């Protein structure tokens, strides 16, 4: 529990993109095998651009891991560790505790080192939630970032706890009777926030400035912090790879994936979408083949309207939490 929020404590430094782009920052080298249009490497890139101290990265099993570290090659220009699917938070906890003990006992030089875990939605919402909850509860000084592409894309687009309602995946197909995933996704951000850690936020690859600011705040926390990164997957979403940033932008403008932070318990909307600018969810759905069955051969107004109602309900809930009144 702290009296000062991270936003108050951390003086905001201006984001100078040109300088940041040309500075030698340890990020991902070119030549990794992630797909064109995949947002995962952007999530890594924006995160690492925001760092001011050296970082050790951890990945759970998933696209990012298999595509960046095919032995004997690696794309990682900073120390990187992978263990298994469900335990990125626990591995990061261990690294943090190890460094802390070694520095305290003067066995290694004292140096602020970020420990950042990257995991997909499957490794976070589903199989990794226990390890994540444990790490958040124990308050290790780590940053955990979920790149949410809404399915187990690496194993062939199976549904996860993050998959949107109505989306077709290989285990929730757009069937003749059941039109895609029948369940709404779980609210991992609020689950993380319920651990009362100092900083929790959502980011989006279409909003890099907001992204970098939030990572800086998360790394300034003296606690575990959690960031949800919305991350389009052209392959799994049956979308054009040139459309990823456009789709990411629509996710915010339809209020399906709003941008906000929970800073020491205070909810704050970081991108207000005014009533008159709020786009219908249909605009988001139309861009992706995983929702095609909702439009062809017959239009499923029932499903689309259920989704709209759910999005409106979640949005209103969030506005209340953020103390925002719509005019």
């Amino acid at each position, binding site marked *: 529990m702290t009296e000062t929020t991270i936003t108050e404590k951390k003086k905001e430094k201006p984001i100078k993109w040109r300088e940041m782009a040309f500075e030698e920052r340890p990020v991902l080298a070119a030549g990794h095998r992630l797909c064109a249009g995949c947002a995962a490497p952007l999530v890594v890139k924006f995160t690492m651009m925001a760092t001011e101290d050296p970082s050790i990265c*951890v990945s759970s099993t998933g696209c990012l891991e*298999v595509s960046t570290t*095919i032995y004997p090659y690696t794309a*990682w220009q900073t120390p990187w560790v992978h263990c298994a699917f469900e335990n990125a938070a626990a591995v990061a906890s261990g*690294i943090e505790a*190890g460094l802390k003990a070694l520095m305290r006992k003067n066995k290694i030089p004292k140096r602020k080192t970020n420990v950042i875990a990257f995991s997909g939605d499957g490794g976070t919402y589903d199989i990794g939630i226990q390890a994540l909850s444990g790490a958040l509860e124990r308050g290790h000084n780590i940053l955990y970032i979920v790149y949410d592409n809404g399915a187990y894309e690496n194993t062939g687009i199976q549904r996860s706890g993050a998959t949107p309602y109505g989306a077709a995946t290989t285990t929730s197909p757009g069937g003749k009777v059941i039109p895609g995933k029948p369940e709404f996704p779980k609210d991992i951000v609020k689950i993380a926030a319920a651990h009362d850690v100092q900083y929790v936020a959502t980011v989006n690859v279409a909003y890099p400035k907001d992204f970098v600011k939030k990572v800086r705040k998360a790394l300034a926390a003296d606690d575990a912090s959690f960031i949800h990164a919305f991350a389009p997957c052209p392959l799994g979403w049956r979308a054009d790879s040139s459309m990823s940033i456009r789709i990411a932008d629509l996710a915010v403008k339809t209020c399906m994936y709003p941008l906000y932070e929970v800073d020491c318990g205070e909810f704050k909307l970081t991108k207000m979408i005014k009533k008159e600018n709020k786009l219908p969810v249909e605009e988001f759905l139309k861009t992706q083949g995983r929702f095609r069955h909702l439009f062809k051969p017959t239009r499923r107004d029932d499903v689309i309207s259920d989704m709209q109602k759910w999005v409106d309900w979640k949005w209103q809930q969030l506005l209340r939490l953020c103390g925002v009144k719509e005019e």
Partner: protein
Amino acid sequence: MGEIVGMTGDESIAYAVKLCDPDVIAAYPITPQTIMVERLADFVYDGELDSEFIPVESEHSAMSCCYGSSIAGARVFTASASQGIALMFEILFIVSNARLPVVMGVANRALSAPINIHAGLEDQLVCRDTGWISIFCHDCQSAYDTTIMAFKIAEDKEVSLPLMYGIDAFIISHALEGVETLEKREVGDFLPPRDPLYVLDPDDPISVGSLALQDSYYELKYAQEQVMINSMKTIKKVQEEFGELTGRYYNVINTYYAEDAEVILVTQGAITGTARTVVDRYRSQGKKLGLAQVHVYRPFPEKELRDALKGAKVAATIDRSITFGAPGPILYSDVKVTTSNGGPIIQGFIAGLGGRDVRIEDIAKVADRAFETAKTGEEPTKISWIGVRGVEF
């Protein structure tokens, strides 16, 4: 040389771990390992031990934290048993492949189901394929001593492998025995600080845990096996050095009256102590009974076991474990394969599952049965279960 202190098996491990000054302890409670981590928590919370104590939310995370801390360069300890080991099973393989000298104390407990908290060695025996060095102790003193040797063996740069060592649930974990202790200074001189094989240096970054496919996995596994085989040299060297320090000499196979024995009992864990008593009785009656305790189980001391058994007519293995549908239980199978090119007849026995008492009379029955086999020279065709109600022995 330190004083003799009364301790349970769990406590002897905790006190020995304290002397080894670990940087990180990550553990989850499970009966009957709990006292190990409770004592360590006491030491940390009372400021007697400078370690990060991570009270994880599961054994899976315990081993995952150990993985992370060990990669960071820390000396790491954890402890578990039974279901806990089953839960962390996945990560055990990953820790050994990364060449991380994580040390784990095990209170060997029968696996569920049915749930049972008492002795069984199968929790550790089923880890035989995980790439961990595996040792079974037979009393509180050996648990204490093995703890100190464990860090030195595991962290030796030629080895750099994880190591698990077990004590039978309750029979050792909760039994109070006199343990001859060591001074902190003595352990400090014996055990050098950890000098990791590799470190996570932001100025010289490496990737740990890469994807290795058909073109490299095979060679990597071959290399890992060579390290495991070669670790035997270090294990023996450390046992020798420990003997010089304390006068307590351990061997990978601890023998007792084996040299001229006609029948040798092959044991692991707490049963060893009872078997020694049986050997004493038989020797006093002039019967040539001996004992070979498989103390180090992985890497398996093939040569040493063959040497120990070479003069005997029958070797009777006593397994406190079960592997279903196999040609025989785990220890039996390893002993049988080791002696397949000549050596004594191997006669297999199962005893004491779920913590059932294995009494002197039970082991005497095993010895008698083995002496009968020695007389007839006929190889038995089945594994005998000692003392199963309703089943003829």
